[in-house]
Structure formats: C-alpha cells, structure tokens
C-alpha cells in the first residue's frame, strides 16, 4: 500500500466544468512528486483536493492508510506552500511559524524549540521578530516553507511557490527546496508549469493535460520516452521540433527527406518529432536547414531556420561552433533519436 493513493479522483465544478478526470496515482513515502502542465490543466485543483481545499466529486484519496475524502483540511496533517506565500501579515515571523503548533495545543517550550530549529534550518533566525512586509521575496519564501516544516506534517504540498521570484532567486530556491526535502525526507508534491523546475526537482513527474495524467515517470524516462506529442512538446527546452509527414511500410516521408526502417507498423499521416539537441552537422545529412537566426547562449548555440515548408526549426550545437545567419546546414539525426506520433490523436507510434 502506498503512502498517498488517488483512486479515480474526479472534480466537476458546479458550473459543469470537468477539471480533473478520473485520476489514479500513487505516491510513495518520502517521494518528491511533481505535477507539471500548462495553466488551467487541473494540476492545482488536484493538489487542492489532496489538501482538502476543494471537494472531491468522485473517487477516493487515501493518505497513510486513511480515507481522507471527508476529513477536514485542518485534520489531514498536511502543510501547503502557496504561490503568493499567504503569510499572516499581522503576525511576526515567529508567530507565523508557531500558529499551526499553537492550534494543535503544543506546549510553549516545545513550540519555541521547533520554531527555532526550523528557523535555523532555513536561515531565518535573525528575522523571527519581523513582520512579513519587512522581508524580501526570498525571505518570505523561506518563512512559507518554515511554516510547513515546523509542523512535521505527513506531506508537503507546493503550489507553484517559485513563480513570484526573479530568475536567479528561483534557481537558488529550487536547489534549496530539493536539498531541504532530501534532508527532512517528507513526502512532497510540487505543482509547476515550468518544465525545468519539474525536471530538476522531481523523483517522479506527472505530466497533466486537460485534467488527465498524460504520463507518469521519472524525469529522464519522460524525456527519453514521451508517450504522446503533448508530453514530448512540453518536456525539454528548447521545445522538440514537429514536422508533418507520412508513414508507409516503415518508411517515413517528411519535408523533403525520408527515414527508412521506422520501428512501427503504423500507416498514415504522422508527426515526426526531433529534439534540437539530437542532431549533428555532417557533409551529406538528411535535413537541409537554411539559418534565419542564431541565439548564442555561451555554452550552446540555438540555430533557428527553415527546412522546406517548416519554419523556426531549431537545432542546438556547442557554443564553440560559429554559424552565420543565411548559411546552409546539413544535419543528421543522432542514433535514431526521433519520435513518431499518430497525427490524428498525438499518440506515439514508434
């Protein structure tokens, strides 16, 4: 039996909108699970149902062997970090951390000990007497996490907690969250629309689209083996290139080139997916790219160009290679690293 079990969980809002479709999944004790998907895909709703902030229309949620469908959020022993932190503006940092403990009837000495431990862990000890309005974004973020940690809950829920921070701080806090989770070892669920955050934080990843889990697995599994066009396009940066084509008797024809011996019995219109980093330059390659734009990132170059009818085709090469705008490149796909999807439903067929 898993630590957190979702069994055919469904959410239908009173106005008839179906936000989450019969979702089933298990989260193991100590695992860091990430829900990733575009905005409005239902990932936050799913998280809020686990927290008890949204009613469950159908299905069951079990936490630590107990059915929690009807358990009040305050009794689920769950801590949540919100996108805008939701710190208590009228309480100082100490009381922000202590509030949940006070409500649980813990003695003053114990509260003080726990708050100080959490504050030390998050390096906010010197701000304990300040009000949230006197803290910077990163500090507020830490206080929000401290409020979650201090109660030693069964599970941490993070609802896009990094999206209000600037780029540099976001990377730093991402690292800290991961380190902290490993140190504390509490089961965590993290919701984000940022695929880099998802890839770096997750032990396992659930890619959610339109209220359905499209794919569930470790980040690298999902990156290497996307099950659908949506997952393939969502995970990986820059995005995978998609080309229209036709698959017939294991031969794929697309945008002026052919791939033979495709490992698929599918026949019909398909979408070919190639990641920008899965190609390299050769003398007589498969794909002929005329370069429109070069983005130099230092370590890498992102080359955008045109192949036959497809615009903005992206190719990634090491930053040491100098490529000029207007030049023609000949590219090969490395190690048959391409993906073929059924055009009609986006499912992977190779």
């Amino acid at each position: 039996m898993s630590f957190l079990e979702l069994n055919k969980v469904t959410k239908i809002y009173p106005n008839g909108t179906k936000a989450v479709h019969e979702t089933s999944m298990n989260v193991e004790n100590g695992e860091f699970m990430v829900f990733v998907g575009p905005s409005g895909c239902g990932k936050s709703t799913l998280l809020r149902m686990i927290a008890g902030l949204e009613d469950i229309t159908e299905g069951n949620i079990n936490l630590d062997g107990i059915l929690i469908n009807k358990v009040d959020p305050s009794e689920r022993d769950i801590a949540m970090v919100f996108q805008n932190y939701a710190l208590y503006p009228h309480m100082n940092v100490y009381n922000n951390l202590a509030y949940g403990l006070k409500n649980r009837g813990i003695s003053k000495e114990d509260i003080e000990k726990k708050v100080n431990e959490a504050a030390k862990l998050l390096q906010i000890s010197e701000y304990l007497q300040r009000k949230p309005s006197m803290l910077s974004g990163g500090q507020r973020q830490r206080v929000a996490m401290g409020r979650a940690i201090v109660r030693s809950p069964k599970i941490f829920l993070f609802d896009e907690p990094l999206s209000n921070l600037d780029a540099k701080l976001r990377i730093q806090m991402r690292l800290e969250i991961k380190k902290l989770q490993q140190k504390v070892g509490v089961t965590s669920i993290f919701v984000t629309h940022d695929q880099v955050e998802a890839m770096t934080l997750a032990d396992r990843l659930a890619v959610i689209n339109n209220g359905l889990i499209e794919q569930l697995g470790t980040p690298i599994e999902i990156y290497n083996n996307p099950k659908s066009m949506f997952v393939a396009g969502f995970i990986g940066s820059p995005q995978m290139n998609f080309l229209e084509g036709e698959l017939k008797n294991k031969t794929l024809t697309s945008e002026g080139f052919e791939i033979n011996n495709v490992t698929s019995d599918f026949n019909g219109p398909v979408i070919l997916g190639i990641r920008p980093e899965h190609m390299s330059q050769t003398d007589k390659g498969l794909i002929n790219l005329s370069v429109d734009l070069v983005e130099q990132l230092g370590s890498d170059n992102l080359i955008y160009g045109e192949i036959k009818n497809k615009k903005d085709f992206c190719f990634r090469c090491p930053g040491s290679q100098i490529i000029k705008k207007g030049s023609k490149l000949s590219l090969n796909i490395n190690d048959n690293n391409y993906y073929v999807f059924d055009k009609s439903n986006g499912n992977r067929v190779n």
Partner: protein
Amino acid sequence: MIRYFSSNFSHLILLIGIFIMIIPVWLIFASSTHTASIINTQGLQFFLGDKFLENYTKVLLYEGGFFKEITALKMFLNSFLMATGVAFLSVISSLMTAYVLVYFRVKYATLLFWIIFITILVPLELRIFPTYSVMSTLNLVNSYWGLIIPISASAIATLFFRQFYKTIPDELLESAKLDGANTWRFFIDFLVPLSKTMIVAMFIFMFVFGYNQYLWPILVTSSEQYWTVVMGLKMMSGSIVNKFAFVIMSMIPPVLIIIVLQKYFIKGIFQDK
C-alpha cells in the same frame, strides 16, 4: 516659485476654513466666561471674561428637569454610556454580519447584503412607531438598553467590513485552515486584528453617531434620569451663559474620543501596510 506660491495658497484656504469653523465656537466659549448681563446688553464676546470657574461649576452641578432628578454630570454619564454602547454593539454586529456574508456559504449572500444595505434608506425616524412598540413590549422603555439597541445595527459599517474582507486573499483562509484554525479562530486571530484600523474608525464614527442622537432618546425615555447631553441642550433652563457653557462642554466627549483613538488609528494604518 509657483510651487511655493501654490502651497501657500492652499494653506491659506485651509486656514480660512479653520477660522470659519472655529470662530463661532470661540465666540460661545469666550461668551460663556462672562456674566449673563454682559451678554444680554453687549452681545457675544470675543475676549475671555473672569467667570469661567463660576459658570462651569454651576452647570456641572445644575439640576434639571421638572423633578430635578438629573444633573449635567449624570447627562454626560448617560450620553457616554449610550454612545459607547452603540459603538461597541454596532462594531461587533457589523463585523460578524460581514464575516458571515463573505465567508460562509450563504445562499443569496449578495442579495441579503443589499437588503441590509437599503435599511440606510429607512432611518429610525421613519420606523419610529414599530420600533417604539417593540421596545415597549420588551419592557426596555426608560432603560439604557432601550436607548442603545435600536440604533446599534449599522448597514454602513457592515458595508465597510464586507468590502474589506473581500480584499483579503483566499489563500490566507486556506493557509489558516491547514494550520488548524476553525471558523471562530479565523475570525478572532485573523479578521479582527487585520481590520483593527477599520474597527477603530467605525468605533469613532458610531460613537459620535450615538452621542448625537436626539429624537430617539426623547421618545424612549420619559424619566428624567435618562436624559442625555443632547436632550439637555434643549431642555435646560437657566441663564444664557450657563447654556453656552453647557454647549462647550457637550462638545468635549466626541472630540476627546477622536483625539484618543486617532493615535491608534494612525498607528494601525502604518503597521498593517
């Protein structure tokens, strides 16, 4: 240069405004320190006289009414009790009403709120007969509760608290819920401290409103023991200087409450920002 001129100019306008408001009050105050004969023969006085102590002690110990049951001091006590009662009750009831309207899953909460709100269009003067009959059925005529209760439901204060609660982000409630706060705790630990500033403002507003009541106290009290200051202004007999002294004294409590509470009021604004 223009800036210097315009700031001076606006100060000038403000000063004129202040003088327009202050001069009548000052005239009454200055006149109240003279003898009645001076006022009767020479009119209002602009400069202070020497009868301050004499006139004011006489007023304070003045026994009014037909049965001489009431003193000015008692009137001040009555007015203070009434105004404080109205302020407390209306702040508490509007706080709670707004809480229910915003946070509870009340059907037609918006409609209910507007029904409460249109009671502004039905002031006490309009519903004076039914209100009196309710008070008399409850045996509250000639009592402090009778003075206080009918005017302690404030639609305006409810409006202010409701609008304020609506600006509080939902995450705060959700976060508090996860931290184990129940309905009552959320109200006491979050909404009350967060609306502290507004509570003080509404308290001042309702205190002055209660203090200034005239028609209702006249109707609901027949015993002279319950006379309030504002009633006393009308009922009081005596020489003109004593009346002037009483007018000046009647202004002190509301002004005092504003001065005392304004300190917290401003402090509240700066802390919560």
